[in-house]
């Protein structure tokens, strides 16, 4: 019987190796898989390349992973938040690399990685510093830039409902990067608010088909990032 359910976040992230590329879902707080990130901090893997839209808040979640110097390089669109100094300090100290990618290009590069598309052309960033050094090409009189698919060794993603096959439903705008990150990673690890029996999720409504998911762990009461930040929590606590 196919059963992708694992018991704890620690087991779920157990084999993330030093130097791995890890995609981490979330748009700010929404969809951020905090419990999986904390398990990864406990696990100790370092020299990670992290693909995530932001760089985390306060001193918990992704910001804590960065603060503990586990991240060699960030690939993201918006590495600034009002309430975190972790990334800026390391960046200005030259201790973390940054590949800045327009948000839509980041999303499309992840989707391409998952869809077996090695490269595609986009109009975003043409004539801006972010297109410097990149190949460009004119189609029908309009200039486009060549961008490459991104794949990862692992993805950490948060879902609302899952089953043993790895079929996923998300909640509201917590969906964001989750579905495409699952497709682009060899091992997609999902923390889900609930796990239900196979067949309880209507096949018409499945957002991430189970084929894209390798492990699911149930986290029924995930922490709220903004609450942890408001309480000035630091991980590990």
């Amino acid at each position, binding site marked *: 019987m196919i059963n992708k359910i694992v018991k704890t976040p620690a087991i779920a992230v157990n084999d993330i190796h030093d130097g791995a590329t890890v995609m981490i879902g979330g*748009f*700010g*707080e*929404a*969809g951020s898989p905090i419990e999986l990130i904390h398990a990864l901090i406990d696990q100790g893997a370092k020299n990670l390349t992290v693909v995530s*839209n932001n760089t985390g808040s306060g001193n918990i979640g992704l910001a804590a992973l960065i603060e503990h110097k586990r991240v060699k390089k960030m690939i993201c*669109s*918006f*590495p*600034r938040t009002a309430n975190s100094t972790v*990334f*800026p300090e390391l*960046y*200005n100290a030259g201790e973390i690399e*940054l590949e*800045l*990618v*327009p*948000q*839509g*290009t*980041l*999303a*499309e590069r*992840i*989707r391409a990685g998952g869809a077996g598309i090695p490269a595609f052309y*986009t*109009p*975003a*960033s*043409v*004539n*801006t*510093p*972010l297109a410097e050094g990149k190949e460009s090409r004119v189609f029908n009189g309009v200039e486009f830039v060549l961008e490459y698919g991104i794949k990862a060794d692992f993805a950490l993603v948060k879902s609302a409902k899952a089953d043993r096959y790895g079929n996923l439903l*998300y*909640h*509201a*705008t*917590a*969906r*964001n*990067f*989750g*579905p*495409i990150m699952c497709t682009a990673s060899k091992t997609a690890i999902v923390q889900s608010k609930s796990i239900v029996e196979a067949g309880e999720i209507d096949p018409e409504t499945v*957002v991430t088909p189970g084929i894209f998911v390798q492990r699911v762990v149930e986290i029924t009461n995930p922490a*709220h*990032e*903004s609450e942890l930040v408001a309480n000035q929590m630091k991980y590990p606590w």
Partner: protein
Amino acid sequence: MVETGKKIGWDRAEMAQKVAIDIPDGSYVNLGIGIPEMVADFVPEGRELIYQTENGLLGMGKVPEEGKEDRELVNAGKKCVTTIAGASYFHHADSFSMIRGGHIDVCVLGAMQVSEKGDLANWSTGAKNAIPAVGGAMDLVAGVKRIFVITQHVTKKGVPKIIEECTFPLTGKQVVESIYTDLAIIDVKKDGLFVREMGPNVDFDYLQKQTGVELNQYNK
């Protein structure tokens, strides 16, 4: 000549209202973070606009009542929002397919600088220690059919933001259709910038002095 002691130009709410009036009924609209968000408060009676937020929601509604916030139902500025009846959620690649694919009618954005040709700079001053952060702005200006900019006419230090060539790193080249400032509404045309409307107690000479590039008047 502008008389002193009188209110000069529009306040933010009035600027937002001017933008709102120019968005046709039935449009799909993406509002940037900050002043652009205020546009939603001034949609003329009888018009229905649909708001897209690039983090995966079409049919964004009003700010939620206090105590009813859902921290995972947010807009691109990461503020809590609601949904209208008829909304839909989707993932980021689908969201930017809407944007890049030309399906959004209007995008309203803030600006650091706008050039005579409609070039927009709104993501970075290029300063050495600034952390560069671009978000979805480059995708929006590359894909949305009409880009409206809403901004103070000059910086807090009084430096013109509407200039011949942007000195800050560009967000996009030749992308802005119209600029809504506290002093005027200015259209970007092939043959230059044209003043469509001026705010209360603003005259053309005053406006020109606050602007870093030559302005034109319609019908002159």
